[in-house]
């Protein structure tokens, strides 16, 4: 039992709920069928398939809640897991922040499933790996890559009448291609809902070019440079910033979105409505994005809809919890399942052409927070860093460590290109001035 249809899930969850003696009960099913292939040194290293379904039961008596899960589905097991969650609930202390479950909800149509991705076989994966390895070998390069495809479903039901069901597919591919002497390295990643969009041979050509083009990078002095960040280079910084759009942390004074209220004075405790970025910055979440869709409901069964986080550079919404929304008399806004940043129509190539002097950054690596107050992060460039002069890639350069904040970055925008799907998000390539590189790295 791996993928379960909506009807079967409904019947099964109804049966589980019937065992409940709690004041409130929420139940859920989550299933996954996934396959992967991994290669290194131009040969397959590991490959596998995985499938599993879990049943989740949350029981509440008053304000005491317990959680239990199981992956057996006979009647005895179903009742057993309900009783276990009830036992745990009775052991738990009262949680004054417990909020009642939601009643019946309606959802937007889901766009997250592709039948093509559900049909991938081990032979398909092997062929996809081969299409990446063969051209690498031909160019006397060394390929190491990973391909993973998955089909998942989620079903949620509760004692207040809520029922939600969604199926989803995803395929991730990435490859690092290096020269035999280790002096050059290139990388590429692709992520789709529908596997038929994936062309590992074509994608690998980018990594091959970058590997061959990055040999013997020149040393540039650390300092502030105009950079073109490919979507893979900026996505983690933007995701980290989006994770900090929590209204509660802002209201509590421990976020970059906190606003200091003077003692004895009243006023907003967060920066909602303030312009913090260049007016070209627009970031939102949308379950129905045509290229990077996400499930139309949150983990608690609450409907997701398009939510603007930043509009024309202004902080437009923050996510919260039902408890915090009630306490602060605001609307409950769940986290978004994706991050969509609008851009322009220029391709990456156009952006390079329109750059007099700058640095092209393929990706940033090992990104860690230095100061949550200023969202200052550190990390390093990796797998393809090039100097641009007069609209052309002039030569490869050695990798840099950066110390920079996305707040500063989104105020120093020179140009935004055409957004691309990356890790389930849509992010444009960005040309940013005065990006801070703090030291050189010998790593290739």
């Amino acid at each position: 039992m791996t993928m379960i249809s909506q009807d079967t899930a409904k019947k099964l969850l109804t049966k589980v709920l019937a065992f409940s003696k709690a004041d409130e009960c929420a139940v859920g099913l989550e299933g996954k069928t996934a396959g992967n292939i991994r290669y290194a040194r131009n040969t397959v290293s590991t490959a596998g398939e995985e499938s599993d379904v879990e049943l989740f039961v949350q029981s509440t008596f008053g304000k005491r809640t317990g959680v239990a899960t199981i992956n057996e589905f006979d009647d005895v097991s179903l009742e057993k897991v309900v009783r276990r969650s009830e036992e745990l609930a009775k052991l738990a202390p009262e949680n004054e922040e417990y909020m009642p479950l939601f009643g019946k909800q309606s959802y937007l149509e889901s766009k997250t499933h592709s039948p093509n991705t559900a049909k991938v076989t081990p032979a398909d994966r092997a062929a996809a790996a081969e299409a990446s390895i063969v051209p690498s070998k031909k160019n006397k390069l060394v390929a190491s890559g990973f391909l993973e495809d998955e089909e998942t479903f989620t079903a949620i039901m509760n004692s207040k009448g809520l029922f939600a069901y969604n199926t989803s597919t995803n395929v991730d591919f990435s490859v690092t291609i290096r020269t035999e002497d280790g002096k050059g390295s290139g990388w590429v990643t692709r992520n789709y809902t529908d596997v038929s969009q994936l062309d590992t041979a074509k994608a690998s050509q980018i990594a091959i070019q970058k590997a061959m083009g990055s040999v013997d990078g020149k040393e540039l002095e650390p300092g502030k440079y105009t950079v073109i960040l490919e979507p893979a280079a900026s996505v983690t910084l933007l995701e980290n910033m989006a994770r900090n759009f929590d209204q509660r942390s802002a209201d509590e004074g421990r976020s970059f979105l906190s606003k200091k209220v003077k003692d004895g004075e009243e006023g907003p405790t967060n920066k909602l409505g303030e312009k913090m970025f260049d007016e070209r910055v627009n970031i939102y979440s949308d379950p129905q994005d045509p290229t990077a869709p996400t499930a139309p409901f949150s983990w608690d069964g609450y409907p997701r809809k398009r939510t603007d986080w930043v509009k024309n550079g202004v902080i437009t919404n923050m996510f919260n919890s039902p408890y915090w929304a009630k306490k602060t008399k605001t609307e409950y806004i769940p986290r978004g399942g994706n991050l969509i940043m609008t851009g322009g129509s220029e391709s990456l190539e156009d952006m390079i052409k329109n750059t007099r002097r700058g640095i092209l950054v393929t990706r940033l690596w090992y990104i860690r927070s230095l100061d949550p107050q200023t969202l200052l992060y550190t990390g390093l460039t990796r797998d393809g860093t090039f100097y641009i002069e007069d609209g052309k890639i002039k030569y490869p350069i050695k990798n840099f460590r950066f110390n920079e904040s996305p707040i500063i970055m989104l105020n120093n925008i020179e140009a935004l290109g055409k957004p691309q799907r990356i890790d389930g998000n849509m992010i444009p390539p960005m040309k940013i001035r005065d990006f801070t590189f703090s030291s050189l790295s010998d790593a290739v």
Partner: protein
Amino acid sequence: MQRRDFIKLGGVGVGSLMLPISGIAVSAEQLLDKPMDVAYKKKLADIALNAAKAKGATYADARIGRYLNQFVTTRETRVDNIVNTESAGIGVRVIANGTWGFASTSNMTPDSVAKTAEKAVEVAMANSKFQTSPVKLAPVKGTGEVSWNTPIKKNAMQVPIKDKVDLLLSANSAAMENGANYITSILFVVNEQKYFASTEGSYIDQDVHRLWAPFYATAIGENGFKQRQGLGNPVGMGFEYLDGLEEDKIRIQGANVGYKNSYDIVEDAAAAGKQLKAKLAAKSVEPGKYDLVLDPAHLMLTIHESVGHPLELDRVLGYEANYAGTSFATLDKWRSGKFQYGSDMVNLFADKTQPYSLGNVGYDDEGVKTKEWDLIKDGILVNYQATRDQVHMIDQNESHGCSYSQSWRDVQFQRMPNVSLRPNKKDISAEDVIKDVEKGIYIAGRGSFSIDQQRYNFQFGGQLFYEIKDGKIVDQIEDVAYQSNTQEFWNNCVQTAGKSDYRLGGSFFDGKGQPSQVSAVSHGCSTTRFNNINVINTARNV
């Protein structure tokens, strides 16, 4: 939607942890009463091994695992979550046509186990088309039927939930009474019940326990906020680690308390509250070159990143190139026998045998008896960390015992053993190390850490920073991070304290591989001095 979305863990800093939350959540106490009978595990394992051989496998191993976890999460005065999980199943790994194959199942009927073993052989056969160099295993003598268990005094799974909640909430109150405005504290309890069998005649039953109780406290001031994490360590121990014995405390005058094999979380939380107030008022560091004195709860992470990872043989060989990266510590450097990784006082060793450490087991996940060996001797690179199928590539014929899998579900591969800095033969104290420093910074606790994909350039922060002037700790300072290059840094190591100061720190969720797996690993060291290191100021105006 990810599985972890179901089991939400709120709170500061927690979101960045990789929580292996999966499996069957039940009362862990109940499960302990009826572990699977060893004779039955042997029978199931034999079914898997025989089925694999019958399909043409030249080698097979089976791991039957039951993994119990308990997580208790609290915030200020209330409990956010109590979760018990259990996951049980079997993973079968084979060699057929000279190629690895793997398959796993949670369905442990004899028929399903046999089919899973056959599937592993099918995978191996399919992948063998790509194989250019057949797998070569270092010899291991079958152990027969043996067992091993973590030497715990109090099984944390059996400690009542109330006691755990009370301890965490006491720590929260202590922090808040002393200056913190917010605090999240968590208890992680892990019990791996692992059975390993191989076609070479090994039947190994192990009961492994680990525990970690971190906290994340925040104080809000006039001009912003500061954070301080707990200074306790994740350990391979039972609940006795939280006894907070006086004899396990090392008090550094004017700075922090270091904890050896016992942790006083309430005392540490109270100290965190006070130190947070000091952080809010502390002056910002003047960037420049300093002599650094690093406490073990900090240096453990620098060892992990700049010595542990670069000496993983699979990284050196390129198997991790597409994810974590490769390594600057290449085979030619090792073969030269002259590569000066550190100063001649730097001795770093690997082991999976230190008591109380996270890596401590009797046998690794491919049935190799664990041991201790040198990685860096008198500053020279002398060895790596390897598994059975790797050691022949470094001209050795005995595995180091570094194979590990996070669960029955995932294939085992090379993971970092404990990697530790040998203490000074002369048993000097941390304060003896500090007293000779004219202009320096003492750093305690692990903070921000980042290192490049070949492990040259790194930058580390910490939890607590103190200025050292003329051999004495003076003011608490802020916004400190140091940047260095691995080889340069370890060659600037000039002094380390003795065995009385030696403490184990650790990483509970170290990620590696694709699909990513977590493992837990400890790093022992004493308070150590590094001269002339570049310190930057991390404060920024936005």
